[in-house]
């Protein structure tokens, strides 16, 4: 678990950490779209410059970025090999043991890989510099306009934040149940299929029983403290856009426009 970096928050103090989550989510969406536009190397280079600047400003260590990308590396390599075997258009670049490798296989795949890498890094920056709770607040605010079409923005945000709140508690609980059942001779590594099924049942059933009880008690506690679903509430944590947030959004928009222009041949 400790080696898994994708989606993990890194508690540092940087300008990127202090940015408004809405601006960060907005910038991420704009950049995602920009990444999908086939704007050639120049387009990707511009995005890459912004992203590298952001990594630098966020004080995240390159090792951390590498760890979030690493799990994908095998997949990307696999993609490349498949494409080399399948794509047989363009000119022959070189020959390996009498097998002709075509230019399209190399370059088109390279584009795909660059896109995927950029997307992973953008997402990593967002999740590593934004507390899960702030992300939730950002999502809530961004969803608010959709209340008109009956998207329960607040309830969605409430559900996400409660889920986030209880993840550590449930992990702890799972560990305890694993230990308790191990003490009763459960062996998760060995045994016949039937025994393994029983072992899984011995973990899942208690976990569900206790999760349901927690849910009930939590609902009681929320109601007792005056929570009424679908009633308006105020919010303690207010988000505030500052100059730097607008700059980020502006830059992301400009990059998107630039890429569209390159794609459509205006430049």
């Amino acid at each position: 678990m400790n080696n898994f970096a994708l989606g993990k928050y890194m508690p540092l103090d940087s300008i990127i950490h202090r940015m408004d989550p809405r601006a960060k989510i907005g910038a991420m969406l704009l950049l995602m779209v920009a990444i999908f536009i086939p704007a050639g190397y120049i387009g990707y280079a511009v995005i890459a410059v912004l992203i590298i600047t952001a990594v630098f400003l966020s004080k995240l260590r390159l090792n951390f970025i590498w760890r979030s990308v690493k799990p994908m590396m095998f997949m990307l390599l696999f993609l490349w090999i498949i494409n080399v075997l399948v794509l047989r258009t363009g000119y022959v670049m070189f020959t390996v043991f009498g097998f002709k490798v075509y230019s399209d296989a190399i370059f088109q795949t390279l584009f795909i890989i660059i896109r995927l890498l950029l997307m992973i890094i953008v997402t990593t920056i967002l999740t590593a510099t934004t507390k899960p709770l702030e992300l939730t607040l950002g999502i809530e605010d961004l969803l608010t306009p959709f209340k008109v079409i009956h998207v329960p923005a607040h309830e969605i945000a409430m559900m996400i934040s409660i889920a986030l709140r209880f993840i550590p508690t449930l992990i702890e609980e799972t560990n305890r149940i694993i230990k308790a059942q191990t003490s009763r001779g459960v062996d998760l590594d060995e045994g016949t299929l039937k025994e393994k099924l029983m072992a899984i049942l011995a973990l899942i059933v208690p976990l569900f029983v206790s999760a349901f009880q927690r849910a009930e008690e939590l609902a009681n506690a929320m109601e007792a403290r005056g929570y009424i679903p679908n009633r308006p509430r105020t919010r303690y944590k207010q988000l505030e856009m500052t100059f730097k947030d607008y700059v980020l959004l502006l830059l992301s928009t400009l990059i998107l426009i630039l890429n569209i222009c390159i794609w459509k041949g205006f430049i």
Partner: protein
Amino acid sequence: MPITFKELSHEYNLGTPFAYLALDHVSLAIPEGKVTAIIGETGSGKTTLVQHLNALLLPTGGELEVAGRTISSNEKPKHLKALRKDVGLVFQFPEYQLFEETIIKDVCFGPKNFGVDEETAVQLAEKYLRIVGIDESDFHKSPFDLSGGQKRRVAIAGILAMDPQVLVLDEPTAGLDPQGAKEMMQLFSRLNKEYGKTVLIVTHDMEHVLHYCDEVIVVADGHIREQCEVHEFFRSVELLKELKINPPAVIRLREELREKGFQIPDDMIDVEQLIDAVASEVKGHE
């Protein structure tokens, strides 16, 4: 043979920035055939200590001898399963480990995991369900229909049915009402006296330590702070104060009266004796 810890250490998250030494070169001998209380503040390392007894945790340094086996940091997991049959570990709120359709099936689960055949498992289950005080008419009911206290008894029977020599209980009376807690402690006392089990109880309740245990082990900051017999332990009030322990009522009263000038011996731990002592002193003035 006693359970022996030799310079045992346990460090969590070894080799990471979050490394944390929970037990620091602990040496300890826990006598066989007794009821031993393990006490200490939350976070002192007592739970880490007991989880070594059935090798849920392996030492990161030193070793442990229990039930005729030696466990050290490089022990292979193959031998560990058999140990878990000999040392039964009951977790806090064990009712959360119940999962089967019927009570009897749930209690049979442990022994069957250790290769006991169906028939013998059922016999063992019935035996221990009776001992913990579950009605025969309930054996085929769902464990989820029982009250909290009853569920806990079933869960404990589930460990007992493995027929362990050593029974380790982590705060077995937490959340029970006083009567339920008392009955639970009486059960452990009986398991020790009638069935010869070595019993270890992690507890915060000093009344239980006083009334049902023979020995006390105090864990503090990953070290063994004290190990002695119960009556010896409640003699030294200075130690209790230092350990921030709220003594049992009889000890509190004894100490208050001693401070007020009553001539009461400091090893008195029985309420009847205390009454006699106070009565004779009051009468002596008449």
